């Protein structure tokens, strides 16, 4: 076992796992029960998709729009799987497990071990995947229980903490003016459409902007 890889995997797992608290609280504020919140973390296990589900349902969206939004965000995981498949070369039940823990972090740590060799890359993937899974689920439960104990979300500022959590996740992705213009356009579009379309649709309809901007951009 490579020590540098193990240390990095643990660091990433714990830091990311802490965000599970925010998801647990957001999910309760959106109307999910503690059990449902924990199942979302155990079974979907994809931060962005889970926050999206909480966001759409919190706004009163339909099941279809929540699942569709989560799936659109989940396509990223499919692309990571594509990258990891030739590295891991897994079959059977191992392939099922590898698929479930294919997330931003496990892929990211695996790729960053390239200099240390294939073995370290594999280690990084498995250690980070299992590490994030463990911490993410523990902190989801804690966040959910904490939010449930609070009662009225508005009295504790949870109604602002949830969009602030999204904003904090989004912020590091806005590295140039192209992305900032896109982000503001999407925000305005969703707000303007809110009184017109049924809940959930104003959010998912902004994918049109991603397609238009991505199509026109220089590749």
């Amino acid at each position, binding site marked *: 076992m490579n020590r540098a890889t193990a240390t990095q995997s643990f660091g990433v797992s714990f830091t990311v796992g802490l*965000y599970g608290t925010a998801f647990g609280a957001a999910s309760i504020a959106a109307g*999910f029960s503690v059990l*449902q919140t924990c199942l979302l973390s155990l*079974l*979907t296990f*994809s931060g962005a*998709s*889970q*926050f*999206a*589900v909480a*966001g759409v349902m*919190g706004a*009163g969206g339909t*099941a279809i729009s*929540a*699942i569709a939004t989560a*799936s*659109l965000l*989940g*396509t*990223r*995981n*499919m*692309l*990571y*799987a*594509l990258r990891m498949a030739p590295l891991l070369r897994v079959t059977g039940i191992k*392939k099922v497990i590898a*698929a*479930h823990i*294919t997330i931003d972090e496990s892929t990211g740590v695996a790729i960053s071990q390239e200099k240390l060799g294939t073995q370290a890359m594999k280690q990084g993937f498995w250690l980070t995947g299992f590490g994030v899974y463990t911490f993410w689920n523990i902190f989801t439960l804690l966040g959910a229980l904490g939010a449930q104990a609070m009662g009225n979300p*508005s*009295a504790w*500022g949870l*109604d*602002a*903490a949830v*969009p*602030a*959590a*999204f*904003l*904090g996740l*989004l912020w590091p*992705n806005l590295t140039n003016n192209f*992305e900032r213009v*896109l*982000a503001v356009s*999407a*925000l305005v579009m*969703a*707000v303007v459409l*809110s*009184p017109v379309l049924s809940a959930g649709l104003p959010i998912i309809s902004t*994918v049109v902007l*991603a397609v238009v901007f*991505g*199509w026109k951009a220089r*590749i």
Partner: protein
Amino acid sequence: MSTFWIVVIGSSIALFLLRYSGYMIPEKYLTNPRVLRINTLIPIVLMSAMVGVQTVTENGKWVIDQRLAGIAVAVVALLLKAPYFVVMVSAALTSALLYRL
């Protein structure tokens, strides 16, 4: 079955199928540069849209209340490069304070 249960089960199945298909589908079908480019922009639009909807709407109506003040404080915290935790807590405190006034 309640809507919430449908969402829990539906999104779990969807996410698993997406990931598993990545281990099954030949690479050539998914590596079109344009598809990759659009895919990196999708989280940006969806998250931005959610920030907007959750800050200034309620049940399909525009509502300006304590949440907007909370998000304004969060933006300031982000501009000052505050850690993620500080961003969330400062937004929550601002909003809670105004709500209770």
